[in-house]
């Protein structure tokens, strides 16, 4: 069977500077796949290129069997993909409700019902729908960003570091939400720095180093892989130690 998302040897970057080189990634329907890698490895660049926000120099992207290389984001959305960027991922001056409406911009009717459905998953937002997103805390903002991306009931969700800069408790909440989303059959491709927790819930994981594929393995196995731990999670575990002395 064909994969939901098939990224084949993609090369992409900014202007003339290529950041990502011949990267391949595969994702089956309903799978949760994590990409880890050091800072500046090109993880965000890869997601943006897949979603059509950056031109792809070389290679191919397929979504549900259709070739979508270099398609516009708005067509990606129409084809059932959706994207939560790493930073600046809500509209700060819009209310929560308006943020969600913008997530459903391509939907002509039933927006109100859809908002209620999505808010079921995010009760902390549902009481504050008239408030500006700028007033939300970091965790709530992230929740809103994810909620916005679910508005069109996507088959595939691309997430760029959804738990960055969150406290361990908030992180846990977000991961729980992501697992619930996955239960509903949505496939997730996620970039994560908090590799331990991410790998623990992932079906598979890729390691990206210097813009190239370095490793691919089922998530829990990768967690146990001493080489990966030493090479790619070393920095991460130090960070964990700093922000969360008790460990997770």
């Amino acid at each position, binding site marked *: 069977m064909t994969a939901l998302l098939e990224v084949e040897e993609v090369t992409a970057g*900014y*202007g003339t*500077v290529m950041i990502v080189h011949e990267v391949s990634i595969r994702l089956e329907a309903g799978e949760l796949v994590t990409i880890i890698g050091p*800072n*500046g490895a090109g993880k*965000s*660049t890869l997601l*943006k290129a897949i979603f059509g*926000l950056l031109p792809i120099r070389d290679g191919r992207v397929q979504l549900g069997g259709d070739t979508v290389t270099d398609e516009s984001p708005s067509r990606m959305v129409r084809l059932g993909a959706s994207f939560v*960027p*790493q*930073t*600046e991922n809500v509209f*700060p*001056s819009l209310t929560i409700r308006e943020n969600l409406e913008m997530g459903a911009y391509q939907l002509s009717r039933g927006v109100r019902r859809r908002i209620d459905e999505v808010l079921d998953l995010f009760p902390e937002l549902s009481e504050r729908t008239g408030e500006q997103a*700028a007033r939300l805390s970091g965790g709530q903002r992230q929740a809103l960003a994810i909620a916005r991306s679910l508005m069109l009931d996507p088959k595939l969700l691309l997430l*760029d*570091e959804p738990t*960055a800069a969150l406290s361990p408790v908030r992180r846990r909440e977000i991961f729980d939400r992501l697992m619930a989303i996955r239960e509903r059959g949505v496939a997730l491709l996620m970039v994560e720095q908090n590799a331990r927790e991410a790998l623990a819930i992932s079906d598979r994981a890729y390691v990206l180093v210097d813009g190239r594929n370095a490793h691919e393995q089922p998530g829990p196995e990768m967690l146990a892989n001493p080489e990966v731990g030493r090479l790619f999670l070393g920095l991460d575990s130090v960070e964990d130690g700093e922000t969360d002395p008790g460990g997770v």
Partner: protein
Amino acid sequence: MLPVDAFTSLAGEAPALLPPLITFGGSVNWTVGFLTTAAIFAIAALALNVQWGYTGTINFGVVAFFGVGAYTSALLTLDAPGEFESYVGGLELAIPIGWVGGMVAGGVLALLVGLPTLRLRDDFLAIATIGIATILRSIANAQEGLVNRARGLNGIPRPLEGFANDMGVDYDLVLLVLTSGVLLMVFLVVRGATASPWGRVLRAIRENEATAQSVGKMTTSYRIQSFVLGGALMGLAGAIFAHRIGTIAPDSFDNLTTFLVWTMVIVGGSGNNRGVMLGALVVGFVWFGLPLIQEELPDFLGTRVFMLRRIAIGLLIIAFVLTRPQGLLGEEPRVSRFAPRGDGGGGLWPTGLWSRIRGQPGGGAA
């Protein structure tokens, strides 16, 4: 509809070049007159290049600095006001002192405008400079006892006039040599400054303010310095203009001069000192040469030749920004184009267009 007394305006609607040459000792030599004008414009273009080309600060009030320099130098060197005149100054100082005074005045104006605005977004300065020329012009027109209001200043002494008479050489040529000499000096100063470590900081500021700030340079201070240097040189250009023409009035200094200097810099190549001098020559030729062929043009164009050349420079600006932003000559070697970004690129905002908006007061992305 066109002012009758020609050359009240440098770039303006008056057929600028021909008549004054006739008054300058009879030799109607268009080329000599044109080159002198182009040299004065080239000084102003080099000045704007320091501000925009090297530092990325917009100044839409070039003619204000120009005019302040012209008036200051005139007031320092003129005789005391006569019976029907009223202006401050009239100190009868030597012309070189007047020129230095014009530079100081241009620099001080730059300081006054730059101090409150240069620490803010780039476009705020551009906006603030829109009005300076209009305001100074209306003050000059309205305030009695300041600069003789709309009657203007007359009899501004001409440099080296006696020398030319004694030697029996054509005065226009003397003036051209003198102006070119000043232009050469200005070019050397600007080239030296922009090639120095100081100039490299300016370019770093222009390319990526965040990086320049993060390496601990005081960007606002550098931007003010460059703005003041540019303002002073514009003042010098204005001073030379005043002494060349002999008569100035508030309406001599309209916004067209500003637009013309901008076109020269953009056509020649922002950030390239030779380029903007070439731009002064090329754009100046289009601007001052077009009226010469007025007779040859079909009637409906010929009667509108002064509008035609403004349409031409408007389109030149657009065409160059669109298709050849580096200008005719392109920029001299510069700092790296892809300086690393502060936030690691996690946001969606691309570099370039948006990078300067972010995180600044009133900017789009809150």
